[in-house]
């Protein structure tokens, strides 16, 4: 027992491990934030307005939702590499670059999920808003408020996606120790080197986080199903 405790203390005072946890959280937080703002806006606009080419956009978005993350990583890599169109930013092998890659993966997912939830709920909410004389922005606000559980659910899902990503992060971030190494990329590297202890510690942290996310999702869905009593 004591030895396990010692081992934990050792792991969680190890600078490299703490850095990997920090990088993961930072990356997940910012990519989730950016994706949420863009994805929620896009999803709601897509539901609200009808325009030419809307079906095509939805189809393209669906395709992007299923895009293998490594492909997104490659695209961002090509954009950010020194001779690439965005090379002057110098974001390759930085956390910023990783956030961009993550956003490229998550924005379509967020857009698609929000669009789907909104298609089911928003029309009735807007209709109601009209019957009580709500103004334009009051209506937008009411739609957001009434859909908040769906939106939280989408955000939590996006966060979960972000912390568990490996391929694109490895490609764009380069898995540099203490800088762009995340929990998942650290685990895959440690495993390939035959070092398991630290990998297990990180794995435990990831599992705990996955558990919390799962629990949050369940909780939000339960709230939601208590609502459907029509």
């Amino acid at each position, binding site marked *: 027992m004591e030895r396990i405790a010692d081992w934990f203390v050792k792991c969680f005072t190890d600078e490299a491990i703490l850095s990997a946890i920090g990088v993961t959280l930072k990356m997940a937080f910012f990519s989730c934030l950016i994706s949420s703002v863009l994805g929620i806006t896009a999803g709601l606009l897509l539901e609200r307005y009808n325009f030419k080419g809307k079906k095509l956009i939805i189809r393209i978005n669906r395709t992007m939702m299923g895009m293998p993350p490594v492909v997104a990583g490659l695209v961002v890599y090509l954009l950010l590499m020194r001779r690439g169109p965005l090379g002057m930013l110098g974001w390759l092998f930085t956390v910023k670059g990783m956030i961009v890659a993550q956003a490229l993966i998550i924005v379509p997912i967020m857009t698609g999920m929000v669009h789907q939830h909104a298609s089911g709920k928003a029309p*009735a*909410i807007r*209709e*109601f808003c*009209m*019957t*009580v*004389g*709500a*103004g334009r922005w*009051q209506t937008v606000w*009411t739609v957001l*408020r*009434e859909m908040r559980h769906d939106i939280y659910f989408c955000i939590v899902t996006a966060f979960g996606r972000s912390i568990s990503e490996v391929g694109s992060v490895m490609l764009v971030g380069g898995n540099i120790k203490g800088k762009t190494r995340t929990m998942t990329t650290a685990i895959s590297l440690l495993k390939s080197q035959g070092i398991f202890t630290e990998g297990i510690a990180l794995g435990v942290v990831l599992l705990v986080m996955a558990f919390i996310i799962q629990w949050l999702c369940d909780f939000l869905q339960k709230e939601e199903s*208590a*609502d*459907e*009593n*029509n």
Partner: protein
Amino acid sequence: MKITDLEKNVGNFNLKIDDLYIQPGLIHGLAGHNGSGKTVLLKLIMGILNPDSGKIDLEGIDRRNMTMMSQRPYLLTGSVYDNIIYPLKLRKIKPVESKIDELLERTGLLAQKNQYARSLSSGERQKLSFLRAIIFKPEFIIMDETLSNLDPESERAIVETIKGIQQTRPVTWLMVSHGQDVREELCDIIHYMEKGRITDEVVKG
């Protein structure tokens, strides 16, 4: 309010109203079989649906001063109370608690004041919808079968409330109701609909 040459197609259904006048300050009834187009007409008037052609002249009424109680009311997440004060909140009017309690009491919803709105029974939902609609004193009120599903006492309470409002300030009502007794008691004019057309009008008195 004046409707002329209004036409609307939804799916295979065609609604065509050549001429309909809603006289301010009166209670208008709208009757007709299921699927005769009553709800479609009400939604056009409320502005939820846009007409294919023709005109709805509101004659100076602001849509923000109109309200419609839907056949299946949308309930906001939150309590009965949250739902009822919502139109006031939109207008930044502070709710008067005693007044709201009195309305809830009268319709028999007081015990449900803090209950989660979506757990209400269908009759209770209709009553909530009614209170939520009249709370902000609109000048034009549309009711889509709000009185169905109500027990006799509740129906009476709502009818009396409508009469009470009518005595204090002039409000224009347009209500769909399948109950003949209520229609005859309340309505000044009844419009009959059939297959998307107004077929008859009966003026009381």
